[in-house]
């Protein structure tokens, strides 16, 4: 790279060719004022605040837009420069309302700062000329837009276009009337806006103000605490804005490679559940102890004693196997470690599981069989440098919004995108190929791709020969899956199958992203194995920008698995039935452990119903919403002798408990989460626990102590140390080491830098293993009585069972209810119009919901989310499970749909709306 020498304010500096004067000055620590410039955005050169004097140049160039030249002599604060800057400021102030007094930007506003720096005041009364008058836009629930305070720097426009790829807003009108707005000046929620808040974070002045921050604190009273978002598995690093003991805002942190300054609407605006008045603030017990007695507040002593006593009695009377625990994919690694330690070391059983069973159990099982490690092979940062991306069964832009941005960036840089999904998800708009397969036919499609690759000789024979085993059987297995045959099964045209196969196989670097559209099937493990087959066949794994990337759901579902929240393994996937593992943990914990793998979530529920499990400790999970066939789950939970639920709200599940223990939210605790790319990141306490709520680690440790196991290591840093010593993949990780960027496991030693991509020279299991898979149909297919396929998923604005997101004012207001998607042709036949109410019924139950008539879903398919308890999709879903991973088939159930009666609509109107209503006026 050519280096350029120049002088700025009398000091020499050397920078690479193409550097702007602004950045060169920055290297010397000289701060040139800017209004329209941001390093992550393209250069606009619009505001002229950054002008400087360059010797022998006639004009004052804008330093942000002017590259350095050899021998240049620059002066950044000459009288001439200052005068020019003053003029810029005077013009802006002439048209700016005098509202600093109440403005939320006061103290953190560039216009104010520079007016002070250059001593420019408002124009004298009567001398300012005409002032713009635009109405203030208060139409959306997240932020307020005040066009009069807008200085038209265009940062928001570029942030929305360049960082988010949304382009909801742009300059409109001309001259005096110019303003930044949506097409046709409609409210943002009628535009493509996704309320990510990128524009809000970019605005240098007070034109864009989050509603949440109005009147709650001045810039200088607020401290920022870097932590990790509590919603999804992307694991965005966020700064919580804290005043006193309250969280008052959030913004994206640029520190972590997981998100690099980008977050989604949930991270930006969805944190306000923290201070909801309906948080649990004291333990609750059943008055008088009766099963149906009222839940009433109790002291911690009373509640903890009762839990220890009842669980102990059950253990003594029915044996250890009569107890079980569910740990939490929302909680920290440290807490998960303690929860499995409680179950294994104190209860004496391996009956510990969590909701990973319901999302990626098939990934953990399948990838372990094929590669030897059940995690995302590559990193989020690598995605936008792939040449071909195959997205299968992942609605990435809604389910994993920031990873969705990486996919969009890749396409912008020229990558080819193939989307295999039954629905026309947002990514299909960018896709070069949309393979719109019939739900549940993934194996056939993948085998079809492999058939084409082998038929055309596009496989990577070198990779196959040197790195894998079992190729001959795979070849045999896919032989019959000709494009025409596969087309009949999947509904995808044969030509598209061929094209997709060629694109993927020929790519220099291709990556596969997948999520629950792959895993939540009775063939979930087969689907995952088939994906692994495809990647190995083409050698698209073990290098940067390639890989098999399961996108994990919950913020810490990866960590909960890593910590041994699974019935068959200790932390770090060390099998419980290997004597040397058991002995190691027995020695460390000083407890006798069971060598018998425990029951999975679905099996625990069945065993509870059958009277085999008597006591259950549920930590931070809500099976009464998340599990399939909810009517069944309710029966099982009611059948228990004793149910403890530890959570932050009285969830549908907690409402059935004998004892409820109030834990704390992510904002109130220390520890770590592990995101989908295996990055272990810090969670930092921003505010004290609400009410009498206690740290979750403390609660678990107190129960253990009362059951005869006083633990030495209870606090997060100590627990992490204990865990790391027993868990090779976390061996080198400590809370102190995580810093602001985190570390990706495997990280075996304190010197190890972490691992961005897996299986570099060999697979974790040695050679990668091909599996011969044949297509099996879903467990339940449409028939005369139930002619439609129900498939389930999520939307951008809510999260899982809605416990948190529906309690957020903005999110709850924007999307207050379910809108089941149905194709226009089906809707017409059923006499349903957009917004009508319908009853959706399966063999297991029925729910009433509003419908949305849209061709996002193909004919014959209905799509619902599981966010809304009054229209709970999981009443309908099938609890048939994958034989290996025991994951239920959430993605395919047979249903019928009819218009709802007036009585049914009324019943829906009365149910579940209290969350929304409370949201509207509360917090």
């Amino acid at each position, binding site marked *: 790279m050519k280096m350029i020498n120049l002088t700025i304010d009398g000091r020499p500096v050397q920078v690479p060719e193409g550097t702007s004067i602004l950045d060169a000055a920055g290297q010397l620590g000289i701060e040139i004022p800017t209004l329209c410039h941001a390093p992550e955005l393209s250069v606009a050169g619009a505001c002229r605040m950054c002008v400087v004097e360059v010797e022998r140049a006639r004009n004052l160039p804008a330093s942000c837009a002017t590259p350095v030249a050899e021998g240049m002599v620059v002066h950044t604060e000459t009288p001439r420069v200052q005068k020019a800057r003053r003029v810029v400021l005077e013009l802006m102030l002439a048209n700016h309302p005098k509202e600093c007094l109440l403005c939320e930007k006061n103290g953190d506003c560039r216009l104010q700062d520079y007016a002070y720096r250059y001593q420019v005041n408002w124009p004298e009364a009567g001398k300012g000329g005409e002032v713009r008058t635009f109405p203030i836009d208060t139409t959306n629930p997240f932020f307020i837009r005040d066009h009069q305070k807008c200085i038209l720097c265009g940062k928001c426009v570029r942030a929305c*276009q360049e960082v988010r790829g949304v*382009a*909801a*807003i*742009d*300059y*409109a*009108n*001309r001259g005096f009337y110019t303003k930044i*707005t*949506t*097409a*046709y000046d409609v409210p943002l*929620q*009628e*535009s*493509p*806006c*996704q309320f990510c808040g990128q524009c809000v974070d970019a605005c240098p002045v007070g034109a864009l103000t989050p509603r949440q921050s109005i009147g709650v604190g001045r810039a200088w009273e607020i401290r920022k605490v870097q932590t990790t978002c509590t919603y999804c598995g992307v694991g965005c690093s966020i700064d919580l804005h804290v005043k006193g003991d309250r969280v008052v805002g959030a913004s994206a942190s640029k520190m972590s490679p997981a998100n690099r300054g980008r977050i989604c609407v949930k991270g930006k605006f969805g944190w306000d559940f923290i201070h909801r008045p309906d948080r649990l603030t004291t333990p609750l017990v059943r008055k008088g102890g009766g099963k149906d007695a009222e839940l009433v507040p109790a002291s911690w002593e009373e509640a903890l004693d009762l839990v220890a006593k009842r669980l102990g009695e059950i253990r003594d009377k029915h044996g250890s196997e009569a107890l079980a625990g569910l740990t939490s994919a929302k909680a920290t690694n440290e807490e998960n470690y303690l929860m499995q330690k409680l179950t294994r070391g104190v209860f004496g059983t391996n009956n510990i599981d969590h909701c990973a069973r319901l999302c990626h159990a098939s990934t953990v099982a399948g990838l372990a069989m094929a590669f030897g490690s059940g995690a995302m092979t590559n990193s989020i940062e690598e995605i936008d440098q792939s040449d071909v991306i195959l997205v299968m069964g992942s609605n990435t832009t809604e389910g994993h919004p920031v990873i969705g941005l990486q996919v969009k960036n890749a396409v912008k840089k020229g990558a080819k995108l193939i989307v295999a999904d039954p629905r026309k998800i*947002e990514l299909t*708009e960018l896709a070069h190929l949309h393979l719109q397969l019939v739900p549940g036919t993934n194996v056939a499609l993948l085998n079809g791709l492999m058939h084409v690759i082998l038929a055309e000789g596009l496989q990577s024979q070198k990779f196959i020969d040197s790195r894998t085993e079992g190729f001959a059987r795979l070849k045999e297995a896919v032989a019959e899956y000709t494009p025409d045959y596969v087309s009949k099964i999947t509904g995808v045209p044969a030509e598209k199958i061929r094209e997709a196969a060629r694109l993927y196989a020929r790519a220099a670097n291709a990556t596969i992203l997948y999520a629950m559209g792959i895993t939540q099937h009775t063939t979930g493990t087969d689907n995952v194995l088939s994906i692994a087959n495809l990647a190995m066949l083409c050698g698209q794994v073990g290098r940067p920008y390639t890989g098999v990337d399961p996108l994990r759901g919950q913020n810490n579902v990866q960590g909960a698995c890593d910590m041994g929240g699974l019935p068959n393994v200790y932390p770090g996937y060390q099998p419980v039935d290997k004597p040397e593992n058991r002995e190691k943990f027995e020695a460390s914990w000083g407890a006798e452990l069971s060598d018998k793998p425990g029951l999975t979530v679905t099996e625990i529920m069945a065993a509870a119903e059958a009277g085999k499990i008597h006591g259950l400790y549920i930590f931070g999970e809500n099976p009464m919403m998340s599990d399939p066939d909810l009517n069944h789950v309710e029966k099982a939970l009611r059948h228990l002798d004793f149910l403890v639920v530890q959570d932050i709200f009285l969830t549908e599940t907690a409402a059935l408990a004998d004892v409820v223990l109030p834990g704390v939210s992510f904002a109130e605790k220390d520890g770590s989460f592990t995101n989908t790319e295996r990055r272990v990141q810090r969670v930092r306490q921003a505010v004290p626990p609400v009410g009498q709520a206690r740290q979750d680690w403390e609660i678990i440790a107190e129960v253990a102590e009362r059951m005869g196991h006083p633990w030495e290591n209870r606090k997060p840093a100590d627990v992490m140390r204990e865990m790391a010593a027993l868990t090779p993949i976390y061996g080198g990780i400590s809370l102190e080491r995580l810093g602001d960027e985190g570390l990706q496991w495997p990280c075996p030693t304190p010197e190890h830098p972490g691992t961005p991509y897996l299986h570099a020279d060999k697979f974790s299991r040695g050679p990668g293993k091909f599996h011969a898979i044949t297509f099996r149909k879903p467990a339940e297919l449409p028939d005369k009585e139930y002619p439609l396929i129900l498939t389930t998923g999520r939307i*951008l604005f809510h999260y899982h069972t809605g416990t948190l997101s529906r309690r957020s004012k903005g999110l709850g207001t924007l999307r207050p209810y379910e809108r089941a998607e149905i194709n*226009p042709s089906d809707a017409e036949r059923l006499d349903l119009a957009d917004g009508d109410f319908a009853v959706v019924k399966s063999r297991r139950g029925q729910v009433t919901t509003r419908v*949305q*008539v*849209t*061709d*996002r879903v193909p004919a014959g398919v209905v799509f619902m989310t599981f966010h809304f308890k009054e229209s709970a999709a999981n009443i309908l879903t099938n609890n048939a499970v994958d034989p290996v991973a025991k994951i239920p088939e959430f993605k395919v159930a047979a249903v019928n749909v009819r218009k709802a009666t007036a009585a049914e609509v009324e019943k829906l109107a009365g149910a579940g709306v209290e969350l929304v209503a409370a949201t509207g006026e509360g917090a």
Partner: protein
Amino acid sequence: MSQASQAGKPARIGTPRQDAALAEILGEYKHEKGALIPVLQKTQEVYGYVPREAMARISQDLKVPMSKLYGIATFYAQFHLKPRGENIIRVCQGTACHVRGGARILEAVQKELGIKPGETTPDLRFTIEPVACLGACGLSPVMMVNDDTYGRLTPEMVSEILARYARAAESA
């Protein structure tokens, strides 16, 4: 978000003939990045203005954000986002006309048609366009209807002049 969730069949915008013309324009410019002004101009030639649905179609086919098209269409005065009347009335508000009662002429036109400057009568006969100097100051106050110039106006004359165009439209 609303855009992505709407049902997909291309709805009718204008007459089948107009819609076919738009399709042709879009086909022509599909691979010409950045030719947005000509596309909007041609669309306006087809429909007489730029209908919102046409802008949506352009946005979809040429993969240009709707906000950007709207920005362009509102930046240049030549683009009209609302249907325009058959007859365009321009009442001069320049200095010379102003001094000689231009405002009262405008008032009379408004009263006669029941619309404000920038608006179009519901029957799509007339559109009032506010203008600065029409370049005929000697005749002030001045107004133009389409290409016809009327000078030395008094408010009383307005009704009769407009009636001519109403009639012309009827007999056409």
